[in-house]
């Protein structure tokens, strides 16, 4: 065999090996697309809580692709809810523990008495939208809401001191959109007995998901503890 033939065959063989290896290593081998959207690359090891968003896009029952967004923001509403739970009743009517409802109105969260707060029997919801506006921690609604759907399944898993809680909603799509934003809402009683939704998390992805009538979008929030 001539030297040049050996060179060519070697290059060709290496190319095939590299190609196969790259296919094995990338999730595209499993699903048509798989995007992982990283955070700001800070070291998150040891964070008490991390939140990841998992988006699955189905058409005619087939999975078209998955997008994973890591290290979500928690909005001011979430902080205030947490603070209200654990701060006693000292500042119940202080601005620092009010939440903004989806209309932007600052609301006192209480039920029956000042020292009580209450989630309503309504399931929490996840919203999807088309805005790409930059997240502000003051956000109280999606930028351009398309639809909200209730959380239809929850899950819990534990390994040693690490726990995951998952919340999933399934969104039946009825028209064409490029879905770019997502939000998690909790239903609480405000001003004694009014049921209202409050946005706890909002996320925007850089590359939208193109959906059409008949598609289904599954959205899962994963809270990872310890």
């Amino acid at each position, binding site marked *: 065999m001539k030297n*040049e033939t050996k060179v*060519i065959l070697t290059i*060709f063989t290496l*190319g095939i090996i590299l190609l196969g290896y*790259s*296919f094995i*290593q*990338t999730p*595209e081998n499993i699903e048509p697309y798989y995007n*992982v*959207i*990283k*955070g*700001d690359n800070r070291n998150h090891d*040891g*964070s*008490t*809580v991390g939140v990841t968003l998992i988006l699955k896009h189905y058409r005619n029952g087939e999975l078209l692709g998955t997008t994973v*967004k890591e*290290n979500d923001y928690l909005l*001011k509403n979430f*902080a*205030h809810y*947490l*603070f*209200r*739970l*654990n*701060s*006693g*009743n*000292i*500042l119940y009517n202080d601005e*620092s*523990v009010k939440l903004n409802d989806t209309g932007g109105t600052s609301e006192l969260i209480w*039920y*029956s008495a000042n020292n*009580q*707060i209450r*989630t*309503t029997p*309504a*399931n*929490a919801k996840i919203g999807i939208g088309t805005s790409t506006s*930059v*997240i502000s*921690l003051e956000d109280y609604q999606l930028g351009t809401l398309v639809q909200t759907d209730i*959380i239809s399944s*929850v899950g*819990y898993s*534990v390994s040693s*001191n690490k*726990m995951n*809680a998952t*919340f999933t909603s399934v969104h039946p799509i009825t028209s064409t959109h490029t879905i770019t934003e997502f939000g998690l809402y909790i*239903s609480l009683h405000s001003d004694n007995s009014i049921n209202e939704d409050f946005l706890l998390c909002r996320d925007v*992805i850089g590359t939208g998901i193109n959906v059409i009538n008949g598609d289904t979008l599954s959205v899962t929030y994963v*809270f990872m*503890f*310890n």
Partner: protein
Amino acid sequence: MIIPLESRLNPKWKIVIALVTFLMLTNTIYSTINPIDNQNKSPFRLIVTIDVEKPDGTIIHECIEDDIILRNFVYFLINSLEGSGDSSSYDLIDTTGTTKNYQTVHKVDEAVITVGDGNTPVTVTDYVLDNEIIQLSITNNQFKNTAMEYNATVISTWNPASSYTIREVGLITGLSTSENYLICRDVLTTSVSVTSGDIITIKYVFLMNQG
């Protein structure tokens, strides 16, 4: 005479090499072009600080970074978002050790910081301190924020009547009209000795979106 390799290649091999190269390049590019979003930050960390002010003005400071969240807290979050599901799969365990189906009314004036001298390692199913010394009411709150970051702090103070050794701390929240639940517990790496005349300040700090 040296003839360049390229000029001696069979055209068919050129096509094959070009095709393989093209596939490798496109696959590599497709694999690496993932959208990057710089808006993300880690949700929250929980830190506990213990400051002991001695009568002579000396300050002893201890800090527990990345406090352990207990299963009660996770179950509470699940129940809060599950709405009417009210699933018994996620029953909480109150501080008496009784398993309780979730109730939607939360008693928020009973949040307390609890202090003990036990040193049993933390497990996420803990519902009470190993050996509780005292429960301390929340006496102060701080909520500070910049544009994108928040600190929510709950504070208790304690003037012990006698000598104790603090080895563990926890946070208890009242989630119904008669039940209290431990949601965080930590064992100190270095115990803190306190005595009468000391002023102890314990803070639970929720650091939001700060990585």
